[in-house]
């Protein structure tokens, strides 16, 4: 396949960025999207250009490192799929593909397609855990967890922290990310003692990082490669309200 790639190039956080066109002649439909960019980068190096910077690591859709806006959609056109799992058979010969970084005030561009998502780490640090010191845990089967609760917790714990939800949201909101962690831990018995402080701490940090508020457009769920449901945001709102009323913070 012959493709035109229109890629956002920005040399640093404060530099002016611009879209640059590159033509690739020999793209195999079996390639992954990132392998296609590898091929471009090999070519750029040999041509004496600077290769395109992008985050990636596991390339099997679980580490959450990769992520770019492909033709206007975070992670590209295929649902439930990270950029690294997107394959070129999704595209056609002669296509022009526009590739941009996540766009959000809370995710400043580091270089080219790479952004700074450390705000997510700080939100987790503000309460996204169970305070259990190593060695103090009781025997694992002493506490029963109904299977539906365990499954619900798991479905939310699947979040890979890639940030596509923020990139997709017209408000730049991170509520799907926050709600996934709150849902994971707050539905489990192990998460009950810190149920209120967790949600309040995480929401306050989320606001401090400059993420926008949720207006239920649902774009986040649509873009989420792990299918975290919008219902989790409803749960987050409920948990936050509950915590505010109980004053147990």
């Amino acid at each position, binding site marked *: 396949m012959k493709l035109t790639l229109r890629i956002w190039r920005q040399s640093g956080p404060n530099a002016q960025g611009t879209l640059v066109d590159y033509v690739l002649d020999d793209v195999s439909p079996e390639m992954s999207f990132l392998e296609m960019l590898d091929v471009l980068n090999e070519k750029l190096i040999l041509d004496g250009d600077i290769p395109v910077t992008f985050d990636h*690591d596991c390339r099997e859709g679980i580490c959450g490192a990769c992520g770019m806006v492909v033709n206007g959609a975070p992670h590209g056109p295929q649902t439930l799929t990270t950029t690294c799992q997107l394959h070129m058979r999704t595209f056609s010969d002669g296509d022009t593909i526009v590739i941009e970084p996540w766009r959000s005030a809370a995710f400043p561009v580091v270089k080219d397609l790479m952004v700074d998502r450390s705000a997510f780490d700080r939100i987790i640090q503000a309460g996204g855990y169970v305070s259990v010191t190593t060695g103090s845990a009781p025997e694992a089967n002493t506490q029963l967890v109904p299977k539906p609760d365990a499954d619900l917790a798991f479905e939310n714990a699947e979040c890979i922290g890639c940030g596509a939800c923020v990139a997709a949201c017209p408000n730049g909101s991170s509520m799907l990310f926050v709600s996934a962690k709150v849902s994971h831990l707050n539905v489990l018995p192990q998460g009950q003692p810190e149920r209120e402080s967790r949600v309040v701490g995480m929401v306050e940090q989320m606001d401090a990082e400059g993420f926008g508020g949720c207006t239920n457009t649902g774009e986040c769920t649509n873009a989420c490669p792990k299918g975290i449901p919008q219902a989790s945001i409803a749960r987050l709102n409920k948990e936050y309200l509950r915590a505010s009323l109980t004053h147990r913070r």
Partner: protein
Amino acid sequence: MSDTFGYTVGTDLADKAAPDGPIETRWSRRKFEAKLVNPANRRKHRVIVVGTGLAGGSAGATLAEQGYHVIQFCFQDSPRRAHSIAAQGGINAAKNYRNDGDSVRRLFYDTIKGGDFRARESNVHRLAEASVQIIDQCVAQGVPFAREYSGLLDTRSFGGVQVQRTFYARGQTGQQLLLGAYQALSRQIDAGNVEMHARTEMLDLVVIDGRARGIVARDLVTGEVSTYMADAVVLATGGYGNVFYLSTNAKNSNASAIWRAHKRGAYLANPCYTQIHPTCIPRSGDYQSKLTLMSESLRNDGRIWVPKNPGDTRSPDVIPEDERDYYLERIYPAFGNLVPRDIASRAAKNVCDEGRGVGPGGLGVYLDFGDAIRRLGEASVREKYGNLFDMYQRITGENPYKVPMRIYPAIHYTMGGLWVDYDLQSTIPGMFVIGEANFSDHGANRLGASALMQGLADGYFVLPPMLGNYLASNKLAPVDASAPEAVAAHTESTERLAKLLAADGDRTPDSFHKELGELLWDNCGMARSDAGLRKALGRLTELREEFWSRVKVPGTGAELNQSLEKANRIADFIEFGELMCLDALHRAESCGGHFREESQTPDGEALRDDDNFAYAAAWEFTGVGSPPVLHKENLEFDEVHLAQRSYA
């Protein structure tokens, strides 16, 4: 004999920290004998932890909880992205919830046998003991393990064992366990007990007066190279599987931290013990950048087969039952599709060598869920393996509910690593090595669902008391980054980066990495021979020299430069590959994942040579291109009788 192989034999190495006495009591005795650091004094101690995977994340969190001041590093943008996240299948623990005859003793036995009698008994027993506590800890953290309708924890089978002791969270057990450790670490970062440096890569180890006292690291965003000092250094930097270029490892996983530490004096043990995983998606072209694992758990319900007749290119659905060869079930009736990984991988290679492989290039075998779907229903199969099936479909464009998966072996894990004693301390005092980065627990082959167990055992339970013992037993003089050794390490690191940038050759870093990978896969992969290894060693010397004169790294060192990061790691991989081939050449026996063609039974199974090779090979660095020194640590088997492995 040693001169012709390019190494010399030094004095034997003994594990001085290992306690004796009944094996069940050794770990509790060692813990009791360990000196303690008063809680009030712990915060005065600075401890560097490099890596935030299961081992590093759990270690950093636990040390910080205990009161030490932890300075932690990862090259990823967040500690949550370490490659442990990609582990799929599960974690073993001797809980015996199934009442199926499991025990600490049996987990210990299975691991020693699975490792083909090349691991240390004391370490493995301790690992089996710790397994029980790991599950408790993770459940308390909120790790959403699979559960029965009763609300109790579910378990499943894994390769190489006959009990159901594997705890799991669908096909994402590594992710869930890592998030547990990451959240524990995050709590300590928030509390100010951990100083976290993400996007920062270790370049060198600082050794002062024979002790590890710090590291040199590069901020990958600004390019700034800095020196960090501490009272002890913990390496939790993972394995070296990416030396093969194509592997199931994450793209950025590398061997630089352990290799630089090796160059500073830490012995490296058994580098030739590499694990080739039988169930990966076959490669599709030259542009292939990595290989994707399909969890071993699939072998619980999937049946592996190839056509009986070579050259049968019919579509699998029209090949009748009696023209299929379910070769694992045929050759190993007792374990069937659940034989250990090394055995399953070699069997796949053998049938492909016979011309019976399937898919492009004949490098694949079928993993067929037809029977399981008929027996259990598609919904039940989806419940167990849904995410893996989806991943397979995304990568190959084929629907595994309808068409059998095609799989082929790929490099997955490395059992070798830095040599450590029972305390997990390397040959450099004050440097501890945990998780996949060390060599200690898996011998010549790791059993499925044991990597997660080892990483967390080391980080949560084994390292912290042993590190405390080191700090309490040694009076460490204050040091800072102006120490001559620290300045020298910093200078060497920056000069090396400058040299990479200055080469300005005509080949990309990746082109060297791919060539290295092919050379090693062909000669030091699933089957190794004297002639092949010698050929590889010859080419590696040339490749190393060619690299430094022909590599082309664009950009500068004072900025984010992914090509520079890559080139810096590949230079280490080439040197590492040389030692790996030399180790494989010297070990003229077959054991576990190390299969020497010259040493096999009449029916093609690995044939050990216990008289000559029942030792761990610990290599001492003497200079690039200079013959290393081999130190042997003899392995004693008092508890498990040395026997030829049999899974028939």
